[in-house]
C-alpha cells in the first residue's frame, strides 16, 4: 500500500480528528426490531448497522439440524445505499467470507449444546459503512444475542487496531483502512479473556503485532463497557441500585 499523504498530522490527530488510542463515538440501541427475538442498532462512528437474532427456532431444511447442538447461521449484508457508489444487493464474495468469520467469532460464546436440533439465525445489515463494519457487526450481534436470551458464556466485543504512518492506532476508519499500513480486526470475550477472531491485512513486524493486538484488546474492553451499559439501560433502566 502506497501512502501518498500523511494520515496523522503534527499534533498527533488522525484524519477524523481523533488521537491514536481513541475510539469513534459508539452508540448501541437494544431491541429495536419487534419481530426479532433480539436486536440491536449500533452506530460506530459513521457506521450504522442493524443486527437481528431469531431463535432458537426450527431448522429448515431439516437435514441441516444437528442432533447434539444448535446450528448458527449468519448473514452479513451491505445495503445498496451503504456505500458511496451503489453496491449490488447480491451477496458478494466478501460478504460471504465476513458472514463466516462473524459466525465463527460468535460461536465460542454461545452454549450451543443447550439447544439441540434448533437453529439460531443472525442477520447483520449494514445501513452505512465506514470501515470496521465487521467489528461493529460482531459487537451488535453479540448484544442482539444477549437480548434474545440465548445462553452465552460471555459477550463478544470487537475492535480493530492497525498501523497508520508507522504508528499503532485503534479503531481504523475507512480512509485509514484503504491508505494505512495494516488493519487487524479482533473479537474478544472480555470476561473469559479469549480471542475469537483475529485477522490481519497488511504487514507488521512481531513487535508491532504484539502492540497492535494489545491495543485492539484495549479497544474491545472499551466497546464492552458500551455494550454492557446499553443492555443494563434497556433491561433495568434507572434501577441500577442493585448492581454491586
Amino acid at each position, binding site marked *: 500500500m502506497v501512502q501518498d499523504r500523511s494520515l496523522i498530522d503534527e499534533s498527533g490527530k488522525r484524519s477524523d480528528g481523533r488521537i491514536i488510542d481513541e475510539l469513534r463515538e459508539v452508540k448501541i440501541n437494544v431491541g429495536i426490531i419487534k419481530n426479532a427475538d433480539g436486536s440491536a442498532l449500533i452506530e460506530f462512528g459513521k457506521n450504522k448497522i442493524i443486527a437481528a437474532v431469531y431463535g432458537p427456532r426450527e431448522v429448515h431444511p431439516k437435514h441441516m439440524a444437528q442432533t447434539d447442538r444448535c446450528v448458527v447461521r449468519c448473514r452479513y449484508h451491505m445495503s445498496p445505499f451503504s456505500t458511496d457508489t451503489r453496491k449490488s444487493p447480491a451477496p458478494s464474495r466478501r460478504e460471504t467470507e465476513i458472514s463466516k468469520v462473524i459466525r465463527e467469532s460468535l460461536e465460542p460464546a454461545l452454549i450451543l449444546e443447550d439447544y*439441540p436440533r434448533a437453529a439460531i439465525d443472525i442477520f447483520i445489515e449494514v445501513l452505512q459503512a465506514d470501515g470496521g463494519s465487521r467489528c461493529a457487526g460482531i459487537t451488535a450481534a453479540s448484544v442482539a444475542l444477549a437480548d434474545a*436470551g440465548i445462553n452465552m*458464556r460471555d459477550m463478544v466485543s470487537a475492535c480493530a487496531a492497525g498501523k497508520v504512518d508507522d504508528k499503532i492506532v485503534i479503531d481504523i476508519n475507512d480512509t485509514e483502512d484503504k491508505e494505512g499500513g495494516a488493519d487487524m480486526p479482533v473479537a474478544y470475550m*472480555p470476561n473469559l479473556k479469549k480471542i475469537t477472531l483475529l485477522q490481519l491485512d497488511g504487514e507488521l513486524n512481531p513487535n508491532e503485532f504484539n502492540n497492535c493486538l494489545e491495543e485492539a484488546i484495549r479497544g474491545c474492553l472499551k466497546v464492552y463497557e458500551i455494550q454492557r451499559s446499553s443492555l443494563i439501560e434497556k433491561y433495568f433502566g434507572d434501577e441500577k441500585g442493585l448492581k454491586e
Partner: protein
Amino acid sequence: MQEIKRKYVIPGDIVAEGNLKPLVNVFRNGNSIVATRIGITESNKEGAKVIPLSGIYFPRANDVVIGKILDHSSLSWSVDINSCFFAHLPAQDVFGRDFSPAHDDMSGQLSSGDVIVARIAIFDRTRDPILTIQDKDLGKIPAGELIKISPTRVPRLIGKRGSMIQTIEQASSTRITIGQNGIIVVSGKDKEGISLAINAIHIVEVEAHTSNLTQRIKQLLNVPESEIENGDTQANHEMNETAMNDDKDISNKIDKETGMMNSNGTR
C-alpha cells in the same frame, strides 16, 4: 430467613464466587459462577442462579402450555407451542387406546387452527415434546382473546400464589388461562373487561421487574384495598421481591391450593 443476594447481570458477569452449586442459567468457570443470560441473580445456600429477563420458551416436562393445532398425521396432531420445537398430541390421548386411524375422525375432534391447553407429558431434548390433554381443565379452548407475552414474564403475571392473576381476573370479571409458553387466553362476557385485562397483562409484561407493580395494577383496575383476598396487601412487598421466582414452584403451588392456575373450565 436466609439471606438472598441479588444483582443485575448480563452474560459473562460473575454471579458468585466460591463453592456454590450452579443452578439455572449459570455455569462454573474456575472458582466463580458466571451468568449466561440477562437477569437478576439469586444466590443462597442451595446455590446460585439467574432469573432471566429475556428469551424464548424452552419446553419442560409437566409445563401447562397453550398451543395451536397446525396439522395432523394419521396418528397425531402437530401443535405450535411457541417454541423451537413443534409438539405432538398423540391421537390415542384423545380417542383412547382403541384408536384406529380407519374409524376415528381426527379432524372432527381437533382441526387445524384450534387452540388447546395441554400439558407436556414427555420431553427429553432428543425428540419433540409429546402433549396430553387428559387432565382436569385441559383441552380445546372454545372462545377468547389470544395474547402473547414473553415467557420470562409468566411467573410475574401469575404472582405469588397466583395473587396477580387473581387480582386481574376479579377486577375485570374475566377468566385468564396462562400457558408457561407465554400464550394467554382471556375470555369473558363483556368486551370492556377483556380489554381491561389485556391492558393490565401488557403492563405487567413491560414492567415485570419493577417494584410495587401489584399496587399500580390495582390502581389501574380500580380495586379497593379491602376487596383483595389472601392478605394480599401485606404480602405485596414481599411478593415483588420473590415474584420472579422459579415458575415451576409457583404453578405447582397454585395447582394444589386453588385447583389449578388457569382457573377456568376450558372443556
